[in-house]
């Protein structure tokens, strides 16, 4: 079949302009395929980073204990302690679990926290807030507090509080001012405002405050343990598997971010489906282009095919010549399109530097290998019909043309 390859190559090089145009057409199809892959993939990455990039990917929350019952000797319930509004359950052995969780593959950061509700008071102004107590040094483990700071520092210490821009504006707060934070349990602490952040998320910027873990222990009367462990993963798409693994290691109820994010996942799936359609259309265009060009070539070379058949070339040989042409066109077009696509994607910012207002193209999601492979397969399939037509050429009629 080496000789069939030589003939196929000669036919392609004999009509350089026609072959060049054909390869260019295939390359454009592959370019569109790669561009769409990078755009759809980048868009999904961008949406995920904006929606779940700053939240915990796996969360372990302390279970509230069942209400206490006082039961008489004869089995009657005498009294029931109602579940309080304030969280009282703790992950008492948090210190034991954290090294275990940190050792799980794919875990990027772990943040033990005490969370609860409280009231922030500045003079006569009061605001209801969600309080998060985090360990000093792990302030940016989940939410990139340091990255979002617009004033002061995100570093938390004893007697310090950090809060959002909206809340600071609502209470007319400035750095260094003192304010009172009262927990839902009634415990108060006077704290100094050490930093103001702006995440762009209204909920966080308008009602979240961060304090050091010891301060939260005092406020929520939790001398030991934590109420929540937040875990960030290197790849948020592995949250389901990692949550299962953490559950298996620790026995704790680890919940991945995908629980309760069904709508987001549906939207991303719909977007991916759109991408598949567009890429399929690009491939169909390639297949039609290659098939029509090779059919024309078959017609033009009918006398030559007749001569080859008369000289003893079998139908299989003729088929191989034309299928090889299709494969070579697919390979050259695929490689050219992939190179063009890669070069076109180079000027776009990397996935870690996506900015609002620019196309979130992810050069790493160009599916280059897949594009080349599918193009070669598509071109081979496209060449089968012309090749079969060539093999059916009647040498007597063809030579007489």
């Amino acid at each position, binding site marked *: 079949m080496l000789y069939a390859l030589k003939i196929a190559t*000669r036919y392609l090089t004999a009509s350089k302009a026609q072959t060049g145009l054909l390869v260019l057409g295939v390359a454009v199809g592959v370019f569109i395929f790669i561009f769409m892959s990078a755009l759809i993939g980048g868009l999904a990455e961008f949406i995920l980073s904006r929606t779940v990039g700053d939240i915990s990917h796996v969360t372990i929350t302390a279970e509230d204990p069942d209400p206490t019952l006082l039961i008489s000797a004869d089995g009657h319930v005498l009294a029931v302690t109602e579940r309080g509004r304030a969280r009282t359950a703790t992950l008492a052995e948090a210190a034991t679990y954290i090294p275990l969780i940190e050792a799980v593959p794919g875990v990027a950061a772990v943040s033990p926290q005490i969370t609860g509700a409280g009231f922030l008071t500045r003079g006569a102004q009061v605001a209801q807030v969600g309080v998060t107590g985090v360990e000093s040094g792990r302030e940016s483990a989940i939410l990139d507090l340091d990255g979002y700071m617009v004033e002061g520092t995100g570093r938390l210490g004893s007697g310090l509080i950090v809060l959002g821009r909206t809340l600071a504006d609502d209470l007319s707060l400035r750095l260094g001012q003192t304010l009172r934070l009262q927990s839902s349990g009634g415990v108060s602490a006077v704290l100094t405002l050490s930093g103001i952040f702006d995440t762009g998320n209204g909920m966080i910027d308008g009602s979240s405050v961060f304090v050091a873990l010891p301060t939260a222990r005092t406020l929520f009367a939790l001398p030991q343990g934590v109420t929540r462990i937040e875990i960030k993963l290197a790849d948020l798409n592995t949250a389901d598997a990692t949550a299962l693994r953490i559950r298996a290691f620790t026995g704790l109820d680890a919940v991945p971010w995908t629980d309760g994010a069904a709508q987001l996942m549906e939207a991303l799936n719909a977007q991916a489906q759109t991408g598949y359609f567009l890429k399929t259309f690009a491939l169909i265009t390639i297949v039609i282009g290659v098939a029509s060009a090779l059919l024309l070539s078959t017609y033009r070379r009918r006398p030559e095919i*007749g001569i080859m058949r008369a000289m003893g070339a079998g139908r299989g040989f003729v088929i191989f010549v034309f299928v090889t042409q299709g494969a070579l066109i697919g390979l050259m077009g695929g490689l050219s399109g992939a190179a063009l696509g890669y070069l076109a994607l180079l000027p776009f910012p990397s996935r870690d530097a996506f900015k609002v207002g620019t196309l979130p193209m992810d050069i790493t999601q160009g599916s280059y290998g897949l594009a080349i492979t599918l193009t070669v397969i598509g071109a081979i399939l496209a060449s089968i019909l012309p090749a079969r037509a060539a093999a059916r050429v009647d040498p007597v009629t063809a030579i007489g043309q």
Partner: protein
Amino acid sequence: MSALLQVEDLVKTFGHGEAATRVLRGLSLTLAAGEMAALLGPSGSGKSTLLTILGTLMKPTSGSHVMLEQDLVAADDRALTTFRNRHIGFVFQFHNLLPDFTALENVVFPTAVREGRETHAARARGRELLTRMGLGERIDFPSANLSGGQKQRVAVARALMNRPELVLADEPTGNLDRESAMQVMDLIAEINRDEGTTFLISTHDEKIAGLCRRQIVVGDGLVTG
């Protein structure tokens, strides 16, 4: 001389029903090994159809066709293709070279297609044949750049490449001037004499036919003389 090929009661009909045209009407013919025969007859007498059937490019409607003791009517397309490649050479009126290939590449084609590649031995034989045809200086010329006479000599070299027992030539000189025609015929006669290759040459030209030792006249689908 022993019989190289034999056809008996050969009938070829084109079309069906009222539109059917019977071109060969029970033609019988025997060619001995080493013969150099001219096939004569007016246009439409069935010469080209006969050559096409003898060349295994077409099957007869009925009749027998035996060459080298093989029944070629019963053979399938694959077997006929292989047989044609090994035992039959063709020279057409319009040379029918592959235009994107050099003279040498055209000549070695029948061997290369059989072996799957252009072997060193095949290229050496191709060069030898082209030199014998007086084209030693044109071996690597693109065939499209050769003159008509040169192209026909390349076609003769190609027909001889696989050392076939039979070469079928359909008006091989019909498209050449007298000088080129005589050059080609001299080469054919030389090869027939030196290598014993059998030639059956279809022609309208009495002078060309006169160079052959046997004249077979076809008329109205039968051998008439």
